[in-house]
């Protein structure tokens, strides 16, 4: 039996705290033998556990009680409060785990220190203070390590210079091999450019939140006629944990998720005919947020590949940073997930601008009697007016996005000049009726305004019959404004419901 027993209890039974919140609890002390303590300290820290070498955050230490003596049978209670960090949040994967700990220790001179430790769950909350900038580039979530001293920089500079000299000396001997490799790379690029021309890949942003709609577009104009196996897109999330170092170092990987989407398969491309394909999908719901520690990484990538038979493939891989939705708050350059997007996932009734807002309970009650689209609503045909207003608003800024948000509750008649139809990989809105639907892109007839409409799975047969140049009449509700493509995102309404 130890001289005393320590026990930690959090004030919340479920031990769940939100990033940036104060974590509170109590430390219970039961004394078994007389003991002179030089103080009781509490430490607060995050650590990884799993296959990778253990990484940990800064240790915060506070003194709960100063030096004193305790007698057998005494029982004490000390309260504590510490501020939780915003990052990294709790994660339990296969190779990598991140947990947050509160530890308490009684410091007993020349004897074993009684101690206790408990973990708590940190869920996403406030974004880290330094997580600001643009969604178009990956932002370091782990603050940079302290800058090295001038002496260190000079030493590093000398080492690099010496290494470069050594490499340069060897390069003379290795010149034929280097030339061979460089020649192969040059030939490969030249050969691809000779067939594909310039390939443009547009992506909306690289900092992404789970559940968010994400669209990539690939465009090129073939210079020759040739066959392709496929034009495809792969979203890959993986854990990568390294244990040991030197010869003992071993990296273990685990695939968290791999989604593949093929937009064109076994097709013949014609010289001079532009190819423009879009990959639209809802980013999967996940708590595997991007993590970049030296030996513990959670990484996401999007790869677009043009698979050409008996020829080098064209491919490009883009790293993606997946963060909690709340972390997007301080970022710029791309629209956040709009409320319309989230509302679309609810079974509640769409709200028209003329009807008073309904509460969640009201909308659920109405579900028992009627389907969402059967509720009497005034069908608006003012899409053309909206387009005119949009065009009058400045392209940059939030004005166009705000206009779409304000009109998001209306059902609109739309006539769309079809450009292309593609299959969806997951629903951009969290509504199962759209999950295996299609994505129709084109322009609003009579205007140059681009629009993308996701359609109901039940309408797939009808949508498959659409061809480029057709005019498609339908009813839609707006989702949001895509500032990258200067385009309206909308969803098809089930005209036959109810």
């Amino acid at each position, binding site marked *: 039996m130890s001289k005393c027993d320590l026990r930690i209890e959090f004030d919340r039974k479920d031990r769940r705290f939100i990033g940036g919140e104060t974590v509170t609890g109590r430390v219970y002390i039961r004394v078994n033998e007389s003991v002179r303590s030089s103080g009781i300290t509490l430490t607060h820290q995050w650590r990884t556990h799993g296959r990778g070498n253990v990484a940990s955050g800064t240790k915060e230490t506070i003194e709960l009680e100063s030096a004193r003596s305790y007698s057998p049978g005494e029982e004490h209670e000390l309260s504590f409060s510490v501020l939780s960090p915003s990052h990294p949040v709790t994660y339990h994967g296969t190779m990598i785990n991140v947990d947050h700990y509160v530890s308490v220790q009684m410091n007993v001179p020349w004897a074993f220190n009684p101690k206790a430790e408990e973990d708590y769950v940190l869920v996403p909350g406030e974004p880290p203070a330094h997580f600001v900038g643009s969604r178009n580039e990956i932002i370091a979530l782990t603050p940079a390590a302290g800058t090295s001293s001038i002496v260190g920089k000079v030493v590093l500079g000398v080492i690099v210079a010496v290494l470069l000299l050594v490499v340069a000396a060897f390069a003379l001997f290795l010149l034929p091999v280097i030339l061979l490799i460089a020649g192969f790379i040059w030939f490969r690029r030249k050969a691809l450019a000779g067939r594909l021309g310039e390939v443009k890949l547009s992506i909306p942003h690289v900092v992404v939140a789970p559940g968010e709609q994400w669209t990539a577009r690939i465009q090129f104009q073939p210079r020759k006629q040739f066959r392709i196996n496929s034009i495809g897109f792969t979203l890959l999330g993986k854990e990568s944990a390294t244990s040991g170092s*030197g010869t003992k170092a071993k990296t273990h990987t685990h695939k968290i998720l791999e989604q593949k989407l093929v937009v064109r398969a076994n097709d013949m491309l014609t010289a001079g005919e532009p190819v423009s394909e879009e990959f639209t999908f809802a980013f999967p719901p996940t708590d595997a947020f991007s993590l970049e520690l030296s030996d513990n990484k959670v990484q996401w990538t999007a790869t677009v590949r043009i698979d050409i038979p008996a020829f080098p493939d064209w491919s490009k891989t883009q790293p993606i940073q997946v963060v909690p939705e709340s972390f997007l708050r301080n970022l710029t350059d791309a629209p956040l997930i709009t409320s319309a997007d989230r509302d679309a996932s609810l079974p509640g009734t769409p709200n028209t601008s003329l009807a008073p807002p309904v509460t969640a309970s009201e909308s659920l009650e109405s579900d028992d009697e009627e389907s969402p689209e059967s509720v009497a609503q005034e069908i608006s045909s003012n899409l053309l007016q909206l387009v005119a207003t949009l065009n009058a608003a400045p392209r940059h800024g939030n004005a166009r996005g705000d206009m779409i948000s304000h009109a998001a509750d209306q059902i609109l008649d739309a006539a769309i000049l079809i450009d292309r139809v593609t299959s969806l990989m997951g629903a951009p809105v969290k509504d199962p009726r759209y999950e295996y639907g299609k994505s129709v892109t084109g322009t609003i007839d009579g205007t140059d305004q681009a629009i993308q409409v996701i359609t109901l799975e039940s309408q797939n047969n009808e949508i498959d019959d659409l061809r480029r140049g057709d005019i498609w009449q339908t009813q839609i509700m707006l989702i949001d404004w895509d500032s990258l493509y200067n385009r309206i995102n909308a969803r098809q309404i089930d005209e036959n419901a109810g």
Partner: protein
Amino acid sequence: MTALPFSHLNLRRNPFGELTAVERTALALVESGDALRHLALPRSVVQVIGEKGFGKTTHLLALAAHFADNAYIHIPEGQRAAIPETGEPLLIDEAQRLTLAQRWQTFRSDRRLILGTHTDFESVLRRAGRPILTIAANQFTNELRVHTLLNARIQSARRDDGPIPSITLSTASKLLAQFGSDIRSMEHSMYDTFQQLRNIQDV
């Protein structure tokens, strides 16, 4: 909803994940008596020999814990490491990667040495006039030791009082047959097993 990790097994983590050096030292099951007696001699050397995964580093860390003023250096592959000038005994992990000059300098110094190595330096050290004790890292690795080692790992991850999973002697025996003395590979295998384990049970 995120729950506490491995609470379904009454554990705090997967017991066979990577440990910190402190945790590994605390869990080391090393017979240090002979080595410590030998290290009482001036200019003495203890060399721990073994293949990858046999527990050389664990041996070194366990011995280091007995000396407050020790100096420890691990030489990564393909790199040249600076030998600490102070601290005794001097522990060198992966000592076979010492350069010839470093060997000559270190082996002829008066500092007591503890070496973790794939190469046997006994004759070289004897020629340098050093009293040497060679320990095979796997000399005590048997079914019982594997059983004790693995269950100690599980015990160290315990969350609360009450039952926790345990490794049976039969499993320890099978692991020994499959991996020989490679404790690290056994731990990796058990990591996967515990990742899949849904209930508290004997493994």
